[in-house]
């Protein structure tokens, strides 16, 4: 087997050195009843050629986003990732290194995380950020728990237009931990009433912008009301590129900002792995979950970086930890950080402008199709349209015509009956031809 260096002769020599007759002697502690002598019922070893062929065939059954006009978003976005990003993250020294427990020989990962934390803080308009979460949704769940710890209250208020899968994650975590969550129904046209639910028992209010329907939300009045009641504002985003153009949650008064970083540096990957961004105010840092890289000096006084404030973490605090998190999304954070370094503030802003412009052009083109109504006034690169037929069928029919046209709202909100709505995203990858193809296909489907 190509991955196993030991030969049978090696094994025999090692058994002899250990002083056993064979491998079974080393499994002596396993109860005989649990011994399994036969191989498990799976195929035997395959050559690299066979494995590659088999998986390529499987991959070939999917419609790759890059092979068609593509407008699917709702929490994950197809952006162009520079080739150097994927090259660099595949360097052995990044790819096959572990969590940097031995800082003297993992300064590469640690310095990168320190840079990443600074980038995330700047991007979100906050003071401090952690070294990443699993993804935006689990980060949102952790943010709510953090707000509970900070306020010593146990009721979270969720805006109706929070991504419903994020909501489900928060609700599940809260319910399982015995906390309360209050949620509004979704409002596709974008008029949400979340402020009315904030009271003196509220630990936090969770608002997404751009929200799941693409609406931009002014967080300032919400922050004001939350703060007046001693609650925290948790701002959520699923499209990190929006922060290149839209007012930062930090500037609008958010206390915790959490979001999905996939858009920068990371591919779609059918939903994972992604990278959760998590930022907050400095004063809250000791209740922040997740890993943190910090600056220090070595024995010769040279600057260096270590994982720090681990007294918050499970491997030290055990049941008193801020979170049970152990693994983060280090490699995805690296991809984010490299792409962000290539972009710079100026590049990010221009990228965001192109995304917005492409969305505006697309919205116009689709709104001109008979039977289509645009629901959004203020949006970044995503919006919602009402169509004159069942949205799920329309999206399926578009797919048959080779256009991946968006997400029917019923895919996300099963029970809400908004079955004529499609969430549509546009990014810098879309060309004029893509937009024309979409509009033409939609016209045919709705005719």
């Amino acid at each position, binding site marked *: *087997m190509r991955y196993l*260096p030991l030969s049978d002769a090696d*094994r025999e020599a090692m058994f002899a050195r250990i002083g056993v007759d064979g491998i079974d002697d*080393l499994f002596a502690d*396993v109860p005989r009843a*649990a011994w399994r002598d036969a191989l*498990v019922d799976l195929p*035997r070893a395959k050559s690299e050629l066979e494995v590659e062929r088999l*998986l390529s065939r499987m*991959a070939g059954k999917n*419609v790759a*986003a890059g092979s068609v006009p593509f407008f699917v978003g709702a929490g*994950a976005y197809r952006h162009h990732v520079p080739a*150097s990003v994927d*090259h660099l*993250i*595949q360097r052995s020294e*990044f*790819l096959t290194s*572990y969590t*940097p427990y*031995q800082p*003297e*020989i993992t300064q590469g990962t640690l*310095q990168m995380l320190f840079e990443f*934390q600074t980038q995330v803080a700047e991007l979100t308009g906050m003071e401090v950020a952690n070294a990443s979460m699993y*993804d935006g949704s689990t980060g949102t769940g952790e943010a709510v728990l953090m707000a509970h710890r900070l306020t010593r209250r146990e009721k979270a208020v969720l805006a109706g237009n929070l991504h419903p899968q994020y909501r*489900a*994650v928060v609700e599940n975590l809260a319910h*399982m*931990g015995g906390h309360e969550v209050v949620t509004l129904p979704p409002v596709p046209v974008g008029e949400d009433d979340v402020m009315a639910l904030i009271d003196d028992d509220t630990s936090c209010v969770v608002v997404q912008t751009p929200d799941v329907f693409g609406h931009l939300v002014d967080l300032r009045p919400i922050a004001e009301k939350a703060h007046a009641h001693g609650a925290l504002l948790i701002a959520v985003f699923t499209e990190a590129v929006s922060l290149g*153009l839209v007012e930062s949650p930090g*500037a609008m008064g958010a206390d915790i900002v959490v979001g999905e970083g996939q858009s920068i540096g990371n*591919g779609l990957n*059918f*939903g*994972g792995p992604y*990278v959760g961004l998590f930022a907050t105010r400095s004063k809250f*840092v000791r209740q922040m979950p997740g890993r943190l890289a910090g*600056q220090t*000096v070595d*024995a010769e*006084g040279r*600057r260096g970086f*270590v994982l*720090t404030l681990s007294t918050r973490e499970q491997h030290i605090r055990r049941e008193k930890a801020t979170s049970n*998190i152990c*693994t983060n999304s*280090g*490699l*995805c954070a*690296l991809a984010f950080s490299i792409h962000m*370094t290539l*972009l710079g*503030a100026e*590049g990010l802003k221009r990228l965001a402008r*192109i995304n917005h*412009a492409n969305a505006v052009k697309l919205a116009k083109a689709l709104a001109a199709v008979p039977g289509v109504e645009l629901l959004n006034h203020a949006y970044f690169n995503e919006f919602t349209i009402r169509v004159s037929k069942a949205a799920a069928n329309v999206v399926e029919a578009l*797919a048959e015509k080779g256009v991946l046209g968006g997400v029917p709202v019923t895919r996300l909100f*099963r029970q809400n009956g908004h079955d004529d709505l499609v969430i549509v995203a546009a990014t810098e990858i879309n060309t004029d031809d893509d937009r024309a193809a979409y509009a033409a296909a939609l016209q045919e489907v709705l005719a």
Partner: protein
Amino acid sequence: IEEALIYETGRPDVTGVDLADVDDTELHLGGLERSDAPNLPGMSEPEAVRHYVRLSQKNYAIDTGLYPLGSCTMKHNPRLNEKVARLPGFGDVHPLQPVSTVQGALELIDLVANGLKELTGMPAVAMSPKAGAHGELCGMMAIKAALEARGDARSVVLVPESAHGTNPATAALLGYEVASIPAREDGTVDVAAVKERLSPEVAGIMLTNPNTCGLFERDIIEIADAVHAAGAYFYCDGANLNAILGRVRPGDLGIDAMHINLHKTFSTPHGGGGPGAGPVVLSEALAPFAPLPWVVSGKDGFDLIEHAGQAGAAKPFGRMTAFHGQMGMFVRAAAWMLSHGADGMRQAAEDAVLSANYIRACLKDVMSLPFGDRPCMHEVLFDDQFLNGSGVTTLDFAKAMIDEGYHPMTMYFPLVVHGALLIEPTESESKASLDLFIATLRDLAMAAKRGDTERFAGAPWYAPRRRLDETRAARQPVLRWTPQAPSEPEPKRDAAE
């Protein structure tokens, strides 16, 4: 060679990405245009590539040397797996595309799910958890949901002293009180203590097997029976599944839930701390409570169950994460499973166990085994008794390994052993590599006993950094670059270890 921070060399007005011009006529932002200019330094591509290449050169990695980090399982990461994960049909597919356009992706998830079920002898698996600890949470949620479904809220979870810190942290997240179970003299869980603490208030036990001392819990079936008899569930931490893969099926031991670290047993790369993937296999009793979503296979192909309303008789407890789990890791794990096959996976487990025992046999005369000279599983645990009186600490010993070109083993874990040194060689090392490692450790142990303390106390001497001041980092946290803070801290301050 020192590498400056991007904040010291990059500039916000520089970009290494060329983008089309865009006309500024129309904005539909509702007046919410960004008002501040974030400090995000940019670089041209040549500068950025060099920065990250040079940073990478300051890292140790499994590709550069043996990485004996016990319980972390640093094994070879085949490059085939990276290649297939990047096939456009897997890497460039959106989680919310119409199901008709992602049949191959669902087939892949199903393939991995079936592999995990077969290897563990368990009837169900929840694929979405994002990492090991997330899988633990998922498994314990399933237990909580099952108890609630039968109207039997319980408040206590039993956790052995030797457990990973994630175990008590997970129990606490769910509002459980954690009751600690002591270890026996031989490093395994005390069955009597378990039985004693079982009560109608106990929701379950969280136990690692093989345990964190590298030992197989001999009485595991007896424990499982006792737990079930008390109406509780048995959660097994699957971090060490790699020791028994294809030889022992957790399902045959009476386990109700176990997470599987795809980034350990199935060799998806650790990437400097993640991403991982932590699917959870579930027993018949817990299977109905598995979280959304999951893949089903029908006569028209595969489908996704994403809402409770589609779940039929099942009672999913909720959702662990947006979307469907760590697809990128599933592809890599699938490639690993297919490459090894049933025969290769069993052989991998056996070689991992053999290599750990070989290290044990070759070092037992110069280092100290806390639980006597008995076979271990895939990792071998030493304590610091052999350093007694030498003036060398476990930490010193480990740091001195860096100067010999090795990543240190896991230190001070598990907590049940004083000055623990936990070595996991994995199946990926050749005998020549093991022999060199053993010779180096023998040499170090002898040097420590000889009292060559300077070599140890000052170590590492030949790394990109000398020993780093972790206390200072925690007491005066500097968690981000700031223009105000001096970029160079004051020089010459001794490390306080």
